[in-house]
């Protein structure tokens, strides 16, 4: 047993840190520190910086730009990014559809899609959930009917994150309705500019526009845009869902959030003393930090298995459950720490966030962030589904 890193790995970490120090744009950093969402240009700018350095898709095959890092290097890279508070790279292209394409796609599909995904030239979104199918994903209703070399797609998708910016969407569609739910599904790549696609914003309770409904009405999609075999889409979908489970714990980012919480607690006062010194609040911070330590070492144990070449099993549902519980708790404590100035709400924060009229900078967005993070126990397989998985697949119940 040994959790230390090799000298090579440590040297690598120093390299990453130095790169970030030099290349992380000040304006993006300021927004991240104030907890304000980035706009499209900012998101892509950071993506581009990493792509140029060759670090935007470490997990990909080397021929398409992957880095062949050890699990330790991946861990240290994530850690260095989180320490510096850089934005995450959007997962829809890089870590969701791309692995499906390079694993199951045709050569043409790889050639066509992987480079623009790598460089951030095209923005992807995910067409999985539908109004009637949330946790029960396989019950989807969007239909694709063959017509010559095309499919005609009809239906609607929902909770489609950042579809308002998207150039492409990857979709699960029913290509056979006469078989069991899982068996008649295909996996299509669809150009968002195709006629018949409309995007309707869904405003969430935090006031943000992050998710959308996507309506597909007689949308013509070339059969060539299908991944793999017809009616085998569920296989690719499941592959995607279980892929890249490392990182779902979000340990490095929660550490950063915890450090920020402590700073806020030092700046806030209670009966004339810093909140940070209050016994009750100290206790809560300590409890959260200890929970996070437990999660970190569980994450490291999973990583250690990966290093040995084992795939993480359903046990890794624990990373999703505990990771999201901690993220939610963190935003809840941050809201509590901020106190009085959590209440003001300023619409259109995106553009005018730094002109916000009242309260300390760190208060901006603390309440919306708390509200927004309630989603984490719902999406990506709700925490109820994750516990079902543990009960069934791990405990055999």
């Amino acid at each position, binding site marked *: 047993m040994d959790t230390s890193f090799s000298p090579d790995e440590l040297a690598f970490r120093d390299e990453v840190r130095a790169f970030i120090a030099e290349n992380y744009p000040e304006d993006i950093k300021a927004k991240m520190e104030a907890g304000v969402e980035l706009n499209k240009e900012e998101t892509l700018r950071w993506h581009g910086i990493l792509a140029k350095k060759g670090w935007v898709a470490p997990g990909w095959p080397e021929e398409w730009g992957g880095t062949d890092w050890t699990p330790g290097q991946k861990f240290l890279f994530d850690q260095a990014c989180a320490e510096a508070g850089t934005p995450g790279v959007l997962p829809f292209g890089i870590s969701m559809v791309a692995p499906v394409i390079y694993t199951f796609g045709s050569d043409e599909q790889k050639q066509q899609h992987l480079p623009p995904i790598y460089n951030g030239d095209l923005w992807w979104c995910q067409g999985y959930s539908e109004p*009637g199918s949330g*946790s029960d994903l396989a019950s989807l209703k969007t239909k694709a009917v063959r017509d010559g070399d095309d499919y005609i797609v009809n239906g609607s998708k929902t909770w489609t994150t950042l579809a308002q910016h998207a150039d492409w969407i990857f979709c699960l569609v029913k290509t056979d309705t006469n078989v069991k739910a899982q068996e008649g599904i295909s996996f299509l790549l669809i150009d968002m500019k195709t006629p018949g696609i409309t995007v309707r914003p869904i405003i969430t*309770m935090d006031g943000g526009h992050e998710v959308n409904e996507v309506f597909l009405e007689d949308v013509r999609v070339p059969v060539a845009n299908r991944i793999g075999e017809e009616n085998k889409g569920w296989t690719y979908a499941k592959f995607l869902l279980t892929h890249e489970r490392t990182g779902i714990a979000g340990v490095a980012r929660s550490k950063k959030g915890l450090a920020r919480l402590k700073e806020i607690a030092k700046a806030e006062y*209670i009966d*004339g003393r810093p909140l940070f010194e209050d016994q009750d609040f100290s206790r809560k911070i300590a409890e959260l930090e200890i929970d996070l330590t437990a999660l970190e070492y569980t994450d490291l144990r999973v990583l250690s298995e990966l290093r040995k070449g084992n795939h993480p099993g359903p046990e890794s549902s624990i990373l999703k459950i505990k990771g999201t519980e901690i993220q939610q708790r963190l935003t809840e404590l941050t809201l509590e720490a901020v106190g*009085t100035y959590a209440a003001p709400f300023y619409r259109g924060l995106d553009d005018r966030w730094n002109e916000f009229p009242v309260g300390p900078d760190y208060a901006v967005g603390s309440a*919306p962030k708390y509200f927004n993070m309630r989603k984490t*126990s*719902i999406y990506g397989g709700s925490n109820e589904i994750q516990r079902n998985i543990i009960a069934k697949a791990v405990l055999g119940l």
Partner: protein
Amino acid sequence: MDFSFTEEQTLLRNTVERFVLDNYEFETRRQMTATEEGRNPANWAQLAELGILAAPFSEDHGGLGYGATETMVVMEELGKGLVVDPYFPSIVLGGGLLRHGGGAIADEVIPQVAMGEDILAFAYAEPKGRFNLADLETTAKADGGDYVINGHKAVVIGAPFATKLLVSTRTSGGVRDADGVTVFVVDAKADGVSIRSYPTVDGLRAGEVYFENVKVPANNIVGELDNGLPLIEQVADEAIAALSAEATGAMKVLTDATVEYSKTRVQFGQAIGKFQVLQHRMADMFMAHEQSTSMTYMVTMKLDEDAKTRGMAASAAKVQIGKAGREVGQSAVQIHGGMGMTDELNVGHYFKRLTMIDAQFGNVDYHLKRYATLSKS
């Protein structure tokens, strides 16, 4: 021993319920809170007309002479509708200070408040004071027969609507001393008063209120000079009782909505309300609401007792609704899934209101500590 309501109280409840049904259909509310004004003044006129605004005031002041139970009934129904009219700041807080403070200023202002002509807001919180009601940097200095007020009050709920502000100031003693606190009535348009208005995350309107050499006559003191803290604490405890009732109303709506939703939403071939884990979670929501109702009754009945008993009751109720509101709100969102996250559905709005109620007049931690301290005193 009896927990039932009088016929008059039931009538009052029905009146407020009707008001909510007529004016607070969810979409109507959403559009109203998105306007620049943030409310519909016609609603306020209607509340005045129905006598709701006059309820807690004495008949001498043009009121109906109702008590704490009636305020509870009104607040619970307002809570069910997520009402944004400034009943709480104007009638419970401002009105409460004037009722208990008494004197000529009360005789002068209350009738206007009861008719809805004057709207009050209570500027008590300060940027660094957190929940300590005596932690005041705002000062009022004697100047002949007048006082000159300077300071900055934070997140004053209802300030943008207010015609008159009640403001807690330090007239003597050091920051956080119990003695030396005085409450004044200040005209919202007085020279030196400025208000920066904004919406709050739960759909209300609030403002930063700045006092710059604001001159007010000594007649505008509410209650006693230098002895304002006990008055503020009494009103704060009454405010907690009112917030408990409001929260209880909100929890009722959330619990019912969640149960109904779970009966219709189908996943894996059955209504999600058939999943035992969700059933138990809803049973817990039900219990959280019931226990909150009990505590709301409890604190309401103890508001007239001595300061220690009253304070313990208020703190106990605030702890209960803080925890229950969190549990009910989070569960409602979780069980509604993605829909619970949207601005289009009422669930998120109730959740946000319950979240903010916890931070008003002291959160769970604050009141656990206060309860423990009072119980040993």
